């Protein structure tokens, strides 16, 4: 998500920044020195995922992979995503300076929900639960954005061709694409490196690897 400066009102931006700041501080407190290289590498990898462009008709979409983030990183997603967003601002001037907090919670909250969903539905096959988590992440991201837009100004929701209606329609195909993409990516990881998809995997990975 790259919400630009000026789209949302200052109180909404301020509240989101406070929530995001709290989340980052909590994640930083929980991070050990040996986890830093892993988080950095995953942060770089997720940044590059967002550069993949998938053609849909005359346009292209860039995967968000918030579901995958939540499944792999858990709470550490706060650090990986904020760094990814800062790099987007630094390298491309995508997003905004005041909207860093908004853009962070728009990705991380759905990511955390997706991670919870994935690890709680153990009876379903890996592909199905990853796809569900991936699709849910996009849907909840759009719902969250709609709430923030409405809190900023009701004009975003007025009329048949309102911003909110257009956003909902535009993101519907992305939710389907993300669901399948997350399903295939997690299924691939499950087949090749199942230990990546265990709870407390960050701790294990840092103990074994880094």
């Amino acid at each position, binding site marked *: 998500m*790259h919400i630009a400066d000026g*789209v949302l009102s200052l109180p909404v931006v301020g509240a989101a920044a406070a929530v995001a700041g709290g989340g*980052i501080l909590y994640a930083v407190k929980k991070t050990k020195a040996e986890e830093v290289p892993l988080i950095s590498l995953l942060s770089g990898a997720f940044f590059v995922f967002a550069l*993949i462009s998938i053609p849909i008709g005359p*346009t292209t979409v860039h995967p968000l992979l918030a579901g995958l983030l939540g499944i792999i990183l858990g709470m550490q997603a706060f650090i990986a995503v904020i760094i990814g967003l800062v790099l987007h601002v630094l390298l491309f*001037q995508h997003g905004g300076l005041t909207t860093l907090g908004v853009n962070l919670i728009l990705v991380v909250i759905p990511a955390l929900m997706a991670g919870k969903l994935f690890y709680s539905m153990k009876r379903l096959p890996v592909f199905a639960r990853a796809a569900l988590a991936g699709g849910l992440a996009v849907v909840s991201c759009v719902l969250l954005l709609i709430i923030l837009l409405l809190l900023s100004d009701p004009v975003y929701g007025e009329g048949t061709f309102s911003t909110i209606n257009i956003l909902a329609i535009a993101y519907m195909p992305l939710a389907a694409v993300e669901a399948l993409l997350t399903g295939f990516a997690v299924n691939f990881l499950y087949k090749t490196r199942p230990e990546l998809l265990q709870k407390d995997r960050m701790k294990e990975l840092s103990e074994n690897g880094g």
Partner: protein
Amino acid sequence: MGGNHTHCVKSHIHHTCDSWVCHWEPRTKTVAAVLFVTGVVSLHSFYLVSAVLLGVLLVSFSAGLPFKLLLTRIILAAPFLLLMAVSIALGGGFPPAAERLTFAGLVLFKALTSIIVMTVLLKTQPIDRYFNGLAHMKLPPVIVTVLFLAHRYVYLFSDQLANTQRALAARLFQPGIKKRSLAVYGEAAGGLLLKAVDRSDSVYRAMAARGFDGILRTGPPLSIRKRDYLKCGTVLLVTTVLILLDWMWFV
């Protein structure tokens, strides 16, 4: 698969300049930019925001930034901004109401102002010098370390993404949203993730061997001079005046 952005990551070279903005110390420049953009976001007057946009355009030219660079940055953000502006303007039907047009213009101009300010902030010194400045802004050491390392890995992974793109093209891969194509995208993302995890092993060992304790040591920052404080103070003064003018306009 990677497209223009991969090229954009690799071609990220700062514009060499010798203007007053280029000599501005990064920390005070960042504080001034963030407070200025926050102030602009709080404005309600379309005419005032239009004047601010014109002002920052003039500042960007005085900073020695080429117009082509600004245009590239604006074009990158254009799809999202246009989607917002058009849906706000035409959301209530055609012809659009005057208030809707004004609101759409306000959102668009605020966003454009911010993009120009960010470009001026980030393209007027080498990125390494800017990162070094950020590292001395009392940020948590973990954030600074991850930022420095992730920035390096972005180049590494964008190279890998470009290689994957070439390999897929050589195998006549058809990009699109067919199930088979999405399986390829998903497995490519999974593969990239695996490489990241595997690499973290050797990276940490190498860093630990060099005494890494969770804090990345960076070079000393540029010293803040009187003229940096003066530039920062001027921006804050302008921001305050803008907020006061806006307040007088509306109350």
